[in-house]
């Protein structure tokens, strides 16, 4: 069984450097290489940070749901920990997506929030849903039940996301410039390079932070284990936590 040293040492360092490099390159390309878009002007440049944040958020939630399914099927608490960390982190990325989306709305249409952009509205709803994940975990004391119920939530929420997008888009009668649609098809070459570089960089960043989080949790758990073996009770028993309990390898 690999120890924390091996799991998180060199690989994490390389991953961090890769994330910094790729994301930096992506933003640099966005700033200097990609042309200014004709319709929206300079404010379109927000697109290179907002859309990668949004896409990575959704992928993170999906991964949280998939890990939850794995947990429900196997009962292995490591999956629960992965699910928890992924969702927790995606929630933060979601906040980033919402804030940058709001800034983009202000820059494009002069208002801090617009209901006409269905993707943004969908993200708000998704945020409100996943924000209940932690309060839910926190309010269930029994650890095994907490993990199980959280996993069910993660699966239901994951299934909810696409339905929500469909429903909100149906509700919007007007067609506004769809930023995410632009990402798919009709981007000119330079923009496409800048966008995809930023996207990959953002994904690397997510994975890096995710592994940092896991490393931190593992280290704490191992420390507690040592303390217990030495006969000292852990000094910090104050309060329950929403985080799943893990046992070190």
């Amino acid at each position, binding site marked *: 069984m690999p120890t924390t040293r091996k799991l998180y040492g060199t690989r994490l360092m390389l991953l961090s450097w890769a994330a910094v490099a790729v994301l930096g390159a992506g933003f640099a390309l966005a700033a200097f290489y990609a042309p200014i878009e004709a319709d929206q002007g300079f404010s379109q440049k927000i697109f290179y940070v907002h859309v990668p944040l949004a896409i990575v958020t959704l992928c993170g939630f999906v991964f949280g749901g998939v890990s939850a399914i794995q947990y*429900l099927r196997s009962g292995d608490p490591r999956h629960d920990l992965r699910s928890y960390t992924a969702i927790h982190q995606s929630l933060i990325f979601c906040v980033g997506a919402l804030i940058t989306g709001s800034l983009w709305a202000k820059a494009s249409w002069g208002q801090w929030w617009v209901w006409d952009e269905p993707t943004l509205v969908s993200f708000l709803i998704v945020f409100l849903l996943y924000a209940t994940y932690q309060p*839910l975990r926190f309010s269930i*004391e029994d650890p095994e039940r907490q993990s199980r119920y959280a996993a069910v939530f993660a699966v239901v929420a994951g299934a909810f996301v696409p*339905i929500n997008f469909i429903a909100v888009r*149906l509700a919007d009668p007007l067609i506004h410039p769809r930023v995410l649609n632009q990402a798919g098809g009709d981007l000119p070459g330079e923009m496409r390079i800048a966008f995809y570089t930023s996207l990959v960089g953002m994904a690397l960043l997510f994975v890096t932070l995710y592994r940092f989080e896991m490393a931190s949790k593992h280290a704490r758990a191992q420390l507690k284990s040592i303390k217990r073996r030495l006969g000292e009770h852990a000094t910090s028993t104050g309060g329950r936590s929403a985080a799943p309990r893990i046992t070190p390898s």
Partner: protein
Amino acid sequence: MPHHGSPHGDVMRLQTRSPEVAQRNTPSTFGAARAVLQKDLRLERRAPQTLVAMTLFSATTYVIFHFALDRDSVDGQLASGVLWVTMLLAALLGIGRLFVSDRDEGGLEGFLLAPVDRTALLFAKGAALLAFLLALQLVAVPLFALLLLGPTPDAGTWLQLLLVLVLADLGIAVVGTLVAAIAVQTRARDLITSILALPLLVPVMIGASNATAPLLAQAGAEPLPGRWLALLALYSLIFGLLAYAVFDFLVED
């Protein structure tokens, strides 16, 4: 508060009650679901707390809307919105109560001991919630028409309204049962119920209110756009299947 008697006794009696059941070793899922459903409906009939509360809540909410909007009558999208917001919030009351008596009075453990498919509980509770919602709307929607609705719907419009209500209630019932099953095991039941159910029910609100709006138009009912019904049906289908898949995990002990 009146004690409702031992609910799990009913499920235990299931095994010896009817002759065809006595022949088999285990009751069918449908039989078990029906037993639990009948138990819930009977409890509510004896001491109608939940339905009365939901209805009173709806009525008072209409009054509040009158003052909040400063309107004597509403029509079209506004009327649709008022109606569905009220229905949604009233549904939260029902959802919050759905598993409470089972958990607090031991019915849940009794059910878990019985050799029946756990999803029978899902069907039973879902059907109970659906029944409660429909019963509520039987009173609350005419009341809305009386108090706040401007245009008077004709018979055809009432039928279409009924269709929208049933489809939307189906979605609320499925998701509501899931949320109720999760929330009843937490320490802050009512809080978790609200914050969990509301985002999940947004698509239902979108579908229901947009479907109802043309029916309540001031100038006379317009035809019902099919896509909202399709949305509601899709929602109920997907979450129904999902609930069926995950419900077992919620009622393990």
